[in-house]
């Protein structure tokens, strides 16, 4: 009972912080924190599945989040027919050829038993396959990227409603997780960490450089929304009248309405995932997972297949991160591959999970909200603090100016200290695992 009261108290405290933001700063920024908090909570739920429940160290969250973003572009953007005519089929053929080559080399690996023969034949096969793949793909890529590069220069997507992108984002992330898991799971935990760090950098490099797919650093803007546009709302008489009833002008009311609609959608996803995770945690499956985490040898002696259980939960957790990534890109309504930074998208999520309480679903959600709130608010608070401390100095003194300039970097320092202090004094987090 006591535990429950504490949980309620902590959640209301974070909620209160957001409400205070609404009163002190603006409701717009409060809703922004809420929406990104919901998305962060989904991400940390996914990482908690992997780390908290199974003890798997994934430091490639950024990559899975990026794949979710890619999914929104591939699903929701309108296709570009000229680009498809120019080289779409060629690119498609090239990609299919690439997949077939890799599949065949796996087959060779399984068929040939002699180690040195296996190595030689696979190398020859892969290297020649790579050159053929490039010769098929490159002309297509050049042709596609030449089609009106300022506006499109890419193939576009399927033109489906953007909500479909969320599960697709999960599937893409699950696919990447499968590849990583197949190779790095079953080895030491650090190796999985390095492997995930690597794959996330590669995924982001692909997003940045494959212009035919994502327009690279030129960004894909104007991704369709699942909620109405502000302009349409302001044009609707019904909406303007209702806003007037609340005493709001149409502009403010429409931006708030759009943000609240997003919050509703994200909240729904979060609730669904929490429900699944809580059920999973309490089910025989969840007990088995924790048993494996706490004592692998004993669990193996009981006949549990540790590697495939790990693979399963690694894929599930990564898929949740992919869904969150798709939600985030939907909220931004644009894919900016240049914005994916590991400190923000991988390590900050780790702070959320550790601070909230690894192994506890509610804890990681709380951590998601709280840490995101701090991440946003440390900058204004830091600015205010530095301003206060350096107030006696000459207003143009270089030290004061430099400090005020670097306040933006303070959030990294704060997050690091927060993580270290929590690990030292409350290693089980704010809402510990029961």
């Amino acid at each position, binding site marked *: 009972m006591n535990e429950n009261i504490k949980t309620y108290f902590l959640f209301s405290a974070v909620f209160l912080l957001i409400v205070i933001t609404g009163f002190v700063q603006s409701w717009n920024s409060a809703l922004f924190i809420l929406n990104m908090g919901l998305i962060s909570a989904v991400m940390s739920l996914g990482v908690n599945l992997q780390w908290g429940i199974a003890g798997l160290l994934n430091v490639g969250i950024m990559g899975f989040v990026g794949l979710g973003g890619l999914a929104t572009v591939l699903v929701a953007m309108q296709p570009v027919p000229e680009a498809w005519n120019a080289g779409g089929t060629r690119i498609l053929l090239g990609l299919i050829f690439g997949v077939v080559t890799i599949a065949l080399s796996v087959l060779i690996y399984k068929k040939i038993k002699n180690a040195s023969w296996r190595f030689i034949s696979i190398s020859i096969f892969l290297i020649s396959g790579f050159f053929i793949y490039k010769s098929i793909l490159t002309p297509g890529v050049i042709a596609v990227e030449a089609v009106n590069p300022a506006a499109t220069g890419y193939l576009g997507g399927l033109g489906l409603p953007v909500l479909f992108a969320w599960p697709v984002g999960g599937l893409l992330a699950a696919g990447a997780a499968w590849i990583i898991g197949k190779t790095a799971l079953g080895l030491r935990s650090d190796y999985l960490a390095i492997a995930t760090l690597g794959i996330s950098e590669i995924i982001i*490099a692909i997003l*940045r450089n494959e212009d035919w797919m994502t327009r690279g650093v030129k960004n894909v803007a104007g991704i369709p929304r699942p909620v109405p546009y502000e302009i349409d709302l302001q044009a609707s008489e019904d909406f303007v009248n209702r806003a007037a009833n609340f005493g709001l002008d149409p502009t403010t009311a429409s931006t708030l309405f759009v943000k609240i609609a997003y919050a509703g959608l994200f909240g729904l996803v979060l609730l669904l995932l929490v429900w699944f995770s809580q059920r999973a945690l309490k089910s025989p499956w969840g007990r088995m997972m924790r048993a494996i985490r706490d004592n692998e040898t004993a669990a193996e002696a009981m006949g549990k297949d540790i590697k495939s259980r790990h693979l399963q939960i690694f894929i599930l957790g990564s898929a949740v991160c992919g869904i969150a990534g798709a939600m985030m890109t939907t909220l931004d309504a644009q894919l900016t591959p240049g914005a994916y930074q590991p400190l923000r998208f991988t*390590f900050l999520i780790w702070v959320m999970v*550790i601070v909230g309480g690894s192994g506890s679903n509610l804890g990681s959600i709380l951590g998601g909200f709280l840490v995101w709130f701090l991440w946003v608010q440390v900058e204004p608070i830091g600015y205010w603090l530095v301003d206060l401390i350096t107030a006696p100095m000459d207003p143009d003194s270089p030290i004061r100016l430099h400090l005020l300039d670097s306040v933006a*970097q303070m959030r990294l320092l704060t997050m*690091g200290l927060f993580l270290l202090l929590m690990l030292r004094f409350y290693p089980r987090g704010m809402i510990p695992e029961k």
Partner: protein
Amino acid sequence: MEFLHAIIVLSNFVVIPAIAYGSQLALGALGVTLVYGILRFSNFAHGDTMAFGTMVAILFTWWFQSIGVSIAPLPTALLALPIAIVVTAALLLGTDRVVLRFYRKQKSAPVILLIVSLGIMFVYNGLVRFIIGVGDQRFSDGARFIISARDFKKLTGLDEGLAIKTTQVITVITAILVVAILFWFLNRTRTGKSMRAFSDNEDLALLSGINPERVVLYTWLIVAALATIAGTLYGLDKSFKPFVYFQLLLPIFAAAIVGGLGNPLGAIAGGFLIAFSEVFITYAWKKVLMYTLPEQFAPSGLMQLLATEYKFAVSFAILLVVLLFKPTGLFKGKSL
């Protein structure tokens, strides 16, 4: 003649840069591997330790430049290096005292220490960005080339030039010196031997009266020196940008794992393997092929296997292959 040209082009654009880059990676990987072998965790803060050390070196370089101290034609940064090592060592020892010692006494699992190192990474990263900012800093001065492409052409009368940058030569010489001293220290001195004993078997080492805190102290001192030297050399050779140093973590870890975590010799081999593959695969081979192939086979494209932005993919692919076929690394490493 054609063949000679091909060799010159190859060494100018591939071999020499790869040797310099490989030395930098090897020094970085040595630091990672020492922490892994003796303190028994994967130190994710290593990239940012390098960034911190380099930052201190840059700050002192600027100070020396402003008061007119110089060791031209060598870069001033070499003069600042010892001071930077001392400052970095103080930071690492402070971190160890305040943060890491607690977990060591608790005998925490390596994976917990890894997460702690993530926190340290955040703090160092914040410190560096707070002090010097996120921008690009160039701080190499002194003579830029030992031999420039134009001089080489004039000297030999060949069509292709071979440029050797001062920083490349300094990198290689420093790396050889550092590695020689390190191996002498580990293999010949009493402290070095006790460090190796501690790494091989902690209990047995404690039993024979080796003071663990002393071993830890020396480890951090060496790691500080290695990280600062590696970072400064990389910064001299290219340029200093905090985020790039964070990204160096991946090739450095790949090098350490490929060579066998905990094995210093492996770290060096791994560093060069990663560097050479990275440069080989992202280099545009057109010119070399033009010189070596008969005219009718001359390539039309750039003949670049992968765009430079995909260099991470190279370290990653090598890492995966090694993990799949030889999980303890090419040289025998530890596996916990």
